[in-house]
């Protein structure tokens, strides 16, 4: 405690976007660990289409910050080789939609290197990519594909919902001995040209800190129902929870943070308390994150007060025209409507 007359020294709050937080984490880790390097398309001179590597070329030079040709199979394959050789590569492929061309290097190579070698060879690499639509970029630039990656054994998959978590998750991801897919949502990234959910811009400590790769967070406490989200849908759930509180409904909101591993215990603990569950994500509905969340609760035999529900993107490609895209994307209105329905007495028997 400082005495009343002594000036209190408060570190100036540094509010960062997710993009800045990622770039800062990578830069700090490159300073600390000489084995860390970054590569990908437009990550050096341009600093990343989504700002994740801004300033790194100037600071660390072209040996450690490498623009690549549009040769994803080769440079992601090369990352697994670098990792096996004791380096810690961070690779960016700017849109998750582009992974079709190089999936083998990811799910047959990076994800299996440790297992096939019986643990002799590890694969400490970070694969970062943007996800999400809502800005009219059509069906090859707007997917999230969370479940596609979450489904593949041997990959860790994290999705930050705010800048604080982004930095701590990136530091943890680089230090993890396994391949980590780091998915950042375009609606949260803080690039001027994409608009940004303001709540994703947070105070970010200068210091080195880790956010665990396997822990969900309760970001709002409540007692009537549990809303589970990740990335953008955390914010939609928080907006919905705020509106619902005005209607006398107390919603708890969980930010999954990671889908592989999935913190099933955190979800179960919350639903045990609230008795109702709604999972929200913007990936395709079937076989998706929501399905996994619902299964986790059902398998635990938790008594529910209404049938568990999920909101996701329907099983169609992402349409270009905004009238269609916004019609099918999840949003806070849809969450509020679903919750009202779940709270009706008839839904509760």
């Amino acid at each position: 405690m400082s005495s009343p007359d002594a000036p209190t020294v408060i570190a100036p709050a540094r509010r960062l976007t997710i993009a800045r937080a990622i770039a800062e984490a990578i830069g700090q880790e490159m300073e600390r660990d000489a084995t860390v390097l970054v590569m990908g398309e437009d990550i050096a001179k341009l600093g990343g289409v989504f700002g994740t590597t801004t300033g790194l070329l100037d600071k660390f030079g072209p040996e450690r910050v490498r623009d690549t040709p549009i040769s994803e199979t080769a440079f992601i394959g090369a990352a697994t080789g670098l990792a096996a050789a004791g380096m810690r590569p961070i690779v960016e492929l700017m849109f998750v939609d582009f992974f079709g061309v190089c999936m083998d290097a990811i799910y047959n190579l990076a994800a299996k290197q440790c297992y096939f070698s019986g643990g002799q060879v590890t694969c400490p690499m970070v694969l970062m990519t943007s996800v999400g639509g809502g800005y009219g970029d059509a069906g090859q630039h707007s997917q999230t594909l969370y479940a596609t990656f979450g489904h593949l054994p041997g990959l860790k998959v994290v999705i930050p919902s705010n800048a604080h978590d982004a930095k701590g998750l990136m530091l943890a991801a680089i230090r993890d001995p396994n391949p980590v897919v780091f998915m950042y949502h375009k609606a949260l990234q803080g690039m001027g040209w994409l608009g940004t959910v303001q709540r994703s811009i947070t105070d970010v400590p200068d210091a080195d800190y880790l956010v665990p790769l396997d822990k969900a967070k309760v970001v709002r406490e409540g007692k009537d129902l549990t809303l589970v989200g990740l990335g953008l849908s955390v914010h939609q759930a928080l907006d919905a929870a705020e509106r619902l509180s005005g209607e006398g409904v107390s919603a708890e909101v969980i930010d999954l943070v990671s889908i592989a591993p999935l913190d099933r215990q955190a979800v179960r603990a919350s639903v045990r308390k609230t008795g109702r569950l709604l999972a929200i994500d913007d990936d395709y509905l079937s076989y998706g994150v929501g399905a996994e969340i619902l299964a986790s609760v059902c398998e635990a035999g938790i008594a529910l007060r209404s049938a568990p529900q999920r909101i996701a993107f329907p099983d169609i490609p992402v349409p270009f025209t905004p009238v269609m895209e916004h019609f099918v994307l999840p949003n806070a209105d849809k969450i509020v409507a679903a919750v009202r329905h779940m709270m009706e007495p008839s839904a509760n028997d």
Partner: protein
Amino acid sequence: MSDAPSNRSDRLWMYTTMVKSRYFEALIKPAYFEGKTPVFNMAKGPLPGEMHLSDGQEPCAVGVCAHLRPGDTVTATHRPHHVAIAKGVDLDAMAAEIFGKASGLSGGRGGHMHLFDARVNFACSGIIAQGLGPAVGAALASKLRGEDHVAVAFLGEGAANQGAFHEALNLASVWKVPAVFVIEDNSYGISVAKRDCTAVERNSDRAAAYAMPGHFVAGNDADTVYRIAGEAIARARRGEGPSLIEIETCRLEGHFMGDAEGYRPKGEVDRLKAADPIPAYRQRLLADGFEAGELDKAEAEARAAVDAAFAAARAAAYPQPEEAFAHVFA
């Protein structure tokens, strides 16, 4: 001009088609920024999403497509407008698609990077080098049916480093299909210069690895493209197999609209604009005996067609939102 094609009507068509394409994009520019000022937000306005303009690259499209018929297939890229217009894609439906309207080519589902016009066998895609495989397939279908249709895949010089490029060229050569691969070398893949990411100076040299002719076309000139592409396409039609052409061209605008272009050397864009291929071609046609009045009239018609397409696209209705669920399956 020794290089000039003898076909007068093709030259007039190439000129007016370049004008049409350039004017199409001239109308896109202000429309794109509607709703995106003062704060640029890609989600806003009548043209949301990324917008890749082809200003400067028109000679590639017209010099190749002048030799094509509706039955020939063209696959294009994320930067498709000039090629689509040159291939004869329905201009009204194309404009409407870009505006996301019900009357668009795909009813608004595809947008600017996913233009499909089956009537003239045109398709494009936002994934780098994705169009090459389909072009090989279209060419094989033509061969199997005993037709003389060809397939042309357009790609950027950056795409020549993608695995699909090398696989498709090899396959086309092994199967000896009537395909032509056309690289538009505008020196950049987004911010990355060709020389910083490509092992050879000219991608046309890579044709040797797949036992097919490789041509490099310097000068960003419609007549030269016309001559070389004509040879390659005729060869394919004769059943003598695929060719690779790399055309030296330039991108007068950013990678996409809103690109700050900090990766360009100072003065580069001014230099490129001073060498704009369209006014240069007009001068050439005049020197070769075309009447200014004739060119003016053709230009005016091209512009009027674009004006009409944009007016109709803007006035057209948006689709019903529920239409999002149609056409997922046939």
